[in-house]
């Protein structure tokens, strides 16, 4: 069964790859997670081409959820969406904390949730109480 895929966009290649490692450890069946970190020269920054490349490597019928680290990464994520008009309706960007959102998104995707549900779950990571009183 097709499941939602996840793209981790970061200014740092290490950061994005590290998140993919962390999340992949939970081995959600049939959930593809791809990193789009750093520029094509390996510098700190983001790259539309890396984002579209990552999206293309994991696109499924169920769709693709993009998460990003800070501001300018969002601009490149939005450009990537514009460059992939054929995916309209099957690709969206989450307003979610990157690490926490990616973790929970992968778990929810593993449960076979829809793109909209996975996005909501990722965004709800904002409300996590990471430390209990």
């Amino acid at each position, binding site marked *: 069964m097709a499941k939602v895929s996840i793209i981790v966009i970061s*200014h740092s290649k290490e950061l994005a790859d590290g998140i993919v490692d962390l999340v992949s450890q939970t081995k959600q069946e049939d959930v593809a997670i791809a990193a789009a970190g*750093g*520029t*094509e*020269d390996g*510098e*700190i*920054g*983001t*790259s*539309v*081409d890396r984002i579209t490349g990552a999206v293309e490597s994991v696109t499924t019928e169920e769709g693709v959820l993009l998460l990003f680290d*800070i*501001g*300018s990464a969002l*601009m*490149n994520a*939005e*450009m990537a969406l514009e460059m992939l008009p054929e995916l309209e309706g099957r690709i969206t960007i989450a307003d979610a904390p990157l690490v926490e959102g990616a973790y929970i998104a992968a778990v929810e995707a593993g449960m076979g949730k829809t793109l909209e549900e996975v996005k909501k779950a990722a965004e709800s990571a904002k409300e996590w109480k990471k430390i209990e009183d």
Partner: protein
Amino acid sequence: MELSAAVMKQWALRINAKMQEHKDKLSELDQAIGDGDHGHNMARGFQEVANKVEDASYDDIGAMYKDVASTLISKVGGASGPLYGTAFLKAANAWKGRDVLDSAVFTEGIEAAVGGIETRGKASLGDKTMLDVWIPVRDEMKEHGADAEKAAKTAEKEAEATIDRVAKKGRASYLGERSKGHMDPGAFSSQLVFEALAEVYKEGAS
């Protein structure tokens, strides 16, 4: 004012020359309120632009600026990449199929560019971003017609005016009040863009 394809190519090349020349200052400005890479980003991006357009021959100014745009988009890793990239991409659409731009059509391109920056970055006038330069330049062109010399003057004045502002968008916005007292790097690179225009227009016209 009329801009030939040849002058428009010179514009792109002159922007590059200016970015190389002011690379350190651009980065210093960004160091103060951002991450210090704006000089690197601009120098890198426009060097690639220059490499791309230098030896190509374009009749269609739209096609030329589409190349400028896509080069910036794919070669600049910071916010300025998608922002300048989108700006020139929108301008390119307005200039499509033209081998010369009159004042009105050039202005349409600048207007489209501003719309692109706004859509991409969701900033407004006064947010201490490159828009603080682009919007007044556009307004002036719309009102009085395109005048490269005036655009450069306005750009310089408006870049200066960003010093006293508090950043509301981009990395500098994380600093809040501490962003005051420094010129916005993107405003300064935008000033250079219009200075380059004034120079090549003057040279082209003479």
